[in-house]
């Protein structure tokens, strides 16, 4: 039963991930007075890519072929225990928040390595920037994890969302909000959005994620892109369901799950709007201003943690 639920949640994430990023793009287009592509565009792209043949560099080793599959596999693995609708999962014994962060790191490392396969300049550039920014994002991420874990008394995802949901106004505590904002900044940078990265560009000066997949094509590219959307979906789901677990189902009843589904979609929509607004209003930062951005995230999370332990006396 609960295993089925876990798989259902994973399926939901995987299925709706392209839609989510499509939605963000669409909202952005509207905000910029463009008609823009339909929200389904991402699916069309993926389908097209799957049909195209895959070309790899003559310099690439076996790693280049393995990476897309492993990346997608790891993203799916994470997806199985992220609390989407139901605040418990059959696979949560296998992974907690730290494991989630670590698996995302695994994905990142494989991405970076694959980017170096072709021996081109763009790949190296993107990989180097990716690893550098990730290194800076990591401490902030870990501290907001600390804050959550201490508040909930656990690093287990389901327990966290349950705990926050159980405390009626738990999410109002300053430490919680600070951690949330820190987490938000980290998620923005991790999922490669403006102002850290610009998903809609191939300008060598700015691109990070695009640069890493530049030498992929066909189904490999499809898999990577799909995995990227899944990862982005997972991150935002984590934000909304760990920090603001409103309406999440605490017991597996149909009604509860229904409300949970609606709440989840609503919250993600809100996220999409906020992201789109942000991307329309702010310009991308120069690469060497990004550390300040992440430094702020670190500061926020540190404040969150200290205020947490201070308020707990």
């Amino acid at each position: 039963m609960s295993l089925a639920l876990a798989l259902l949640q994973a399926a939901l994430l995987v299925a709706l991930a392209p839609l989510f990023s499509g939605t963000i793009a669409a909202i952005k287009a509207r905000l910029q007075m463009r008609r823009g592509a339909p929200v389904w565009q991402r699916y069309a792209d993926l389908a097209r890519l799957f049909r195209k043949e895959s070309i790899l560099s003559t310099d690439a080793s076996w790693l280049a072929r393995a990476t897309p599959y492993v990346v997608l596999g790891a993203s799916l693995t994470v997806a199985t225990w992220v609390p989407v609708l139901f605040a418990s999962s059959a696979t949560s014994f296998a992974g907690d928040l730290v494991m989630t962060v670590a698996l995302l790191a695994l994905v990142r490392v494989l991405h970076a390595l694959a980017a170096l396969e072709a021996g081109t300049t763009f790949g190296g550039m993107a990989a180097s920037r990716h690893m550098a920014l990730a290194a800076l994002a990591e401490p902030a991420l870990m501290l907001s994890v600390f804050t959550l874990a201490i508040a909930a008394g656990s690093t287990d995802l389901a327990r966290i969302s349950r705990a926050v949901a159980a405390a009626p106004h738990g999410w109002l505590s300053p430490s919680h909000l600070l951690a949330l904002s820190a987490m938000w900044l980290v998620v923005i940078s991790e999922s490669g959005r403006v102002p850290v990265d610009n998903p809609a560009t191939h300008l060598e000066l700015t691109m990070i994620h695009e640069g890493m997949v530049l030498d992929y094509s066909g189904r490999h590219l499809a898999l990577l892109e799909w995995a990227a959307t899944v990862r982005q979906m997972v991150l935002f789901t984590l934000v909304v369901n760990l920090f603001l677990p409103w309406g999440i189902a605490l017991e597996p009843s149909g009604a509860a799950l229904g409300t949970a589904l609606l709440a989840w979609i609503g919250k993600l929509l809100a996220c999409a709007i906020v992201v789109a607004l942000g991307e329309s209003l702010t310009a991308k930062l120069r690469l060497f201003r990004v550390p300040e951005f992440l430094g702020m995230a670190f500061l926020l999370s540190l404040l969150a943690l200290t205020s947490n332990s201070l308020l707990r006396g």
Partner: protein
Amino acid sequence: MPLAGLDGALFAAAIWGLAAAALFPAIPLPSRFAFLSAASRAAIARPVAIAGALALAAVGALGLAGVVPAPLRWWPGLPGDPFMLGVDALAAPFLLLLGLLTAISLAARHPGPEEGPAGLVLHIGFAVALAAVFAAQHALLLLVAWEGMTLLSAALVARDTRSARARRAAYVYLVISHIGAAAIGFGLMRLAALAGSFGFPDLAAALGRLPAGESAALVSLMSAGFAVKLGLAPLHVWLPLAHPEAPAPVSALLSGAMVKAGLYGLLRFGWQMPGSPPAGWGVTLAVIGLFTALVGALYAVVESDAKRLLAFSTVKNAGLLALALGIAATLLRAGYVPLAGVALAACLYHAVGHGLAKGLAFLAVGEAVHAAGSRDLEKLGGLARRMPRLSVAALIASLSLSGLPPLACFAGEWLLFQALILGLAAGGGSMRLLAPFSGAGLALATALSAAALVKLYGIAFLGRPRSAAAANAKPPPRAMEVWLLVLAGLGLAWGLAAPLAIAALALPISAVLGPGFDAASLSGFGGLTLSIPPEAFASISPLAVATLIALFVGLVFAWVALRGLHPGVRRAPSWACGVSLDARMQYSALGFTKPLRLIFRPLIRAESEISILEEGSPYFAQKYRYRSAVPPLAESLVFSPMVQAVFWISTQARRLQAGSLHVYLAYLLVTLVALLMLAR
């Protein structure tokens, strides 16, 4: 115990086998024994040594199972009790690690034809000394083994006798280690003198009798000595100098096993003593460890010599071990025994895990760069296509050392994070400040070393070869690659079976921590999950994660295959904006870490200058030179001032012997008069 007979025999066989294998080729024979030429004797000695090493590993495993072999004794004719080699719970995991690494590093040796047996002799002798360090149960013997270990490893570091770099490395290493050994020796012998015996229990009793202040000072002194071997900053300077210079198999042993000797010493003489760990020991160790981890990771990122990079990663992991140990001690003093147990489990598990991973890394990368003829990443590249099996081993090593799940170095960090979070939640006094910074610092260090290892593997093994030598590098002998894959398998097993491994470490942990915590309680579902009591605070399962990933990969693959959309792959040269790609267009190792180098420039004082060699048009000069260097701050800030001071004093003092007989006579006169006036 049914094994009672066997284990003693195994232990004796391990020690004497290794010792005999070390001596057999070393003894100079008259020429009339030509049939026993040194080379042929070496050929006999190597398998013997491998067997001995495996026996040692078996002894270690048995020790973890609680089977303690009868100790070996002999009487060196000195006053005091006889020398004694034995295995106890604490020594067992280290012996296991040492045995495995020694066996594989010996098996993976493939010296050139011109090389004499000296290398092999030193290699085995070094292993013997290490085994003696871990198994010694006699203070003086421990000191002998310790110094012997230093000496032999220094000889191995200076194996390439012509290289000035190796010579300097060996010298710095010798001196710093000797100073550490002096500190250790003083502590041990002070206790021995008080106890009137060299046995460890008596030493502990003697320490217990000392007044608190003095015992704390003594323990701290010894800990400082052991910290040198562990390579904690700023005493780590010798490590990145020495480890890379030795041949690859020896570097594996140095970084994999010898560094752990420092940890062993800290555990046995810093902690496992009455009244220890003294107040502040844990906090100090944790702070130093955190600092070391960051220093190591940062310098690993900016290093572009493959083996030095690995050495700095060793420094980072040494820092992590010290951090875990310090956190454990702090938690223990704050009274949270189970949490201390968790941190300690993290420490011991990571000690072995890192040993396996780093051994593999040095063997694989060392061999690769040896084949490619340069340690400089800027001259490497594209090795993965030229030595695929080796590259698998190297990749596994790199990913493990980046602390990624489900590999050998992840579970340890996970446990440490849990200990930090729980310690913070429990709000034990100093933890409140320590935990957040440790967590953040640890995350940063891990991410940085991940960047460093991506750089190592990505630049050396992927992309295009950056030099002719790298372009036609030949893979090492098949046998060696097989051995590397065996070691890789061991590392994988250690990672996937983390819960079982930690349960297996229960004995040493409780030997250090005392009762009140059972590491076996950390593993649940019959070793499937690693979970934190009480009430399964959180749990992970490397094995399940691996299975899930494999499952999904399989599914996706099957799906793609079934849909049958262009299953094949077409190969084409990389696209480089239309111009033909050459190796100099790829990112260099220097360029790869430029963002981090710029970001951390204020800390590491990285220097760089661009000079235009040939002016072309104002915007496009024809030739640039870019020079970048990261100065070794620890040397320039800590050590060279001391050295300069010593030398200044010496130059002044040398005036005593100015050559004038009259002055010499005056010394006599003055001494005589002074004695007459003062001493009579």
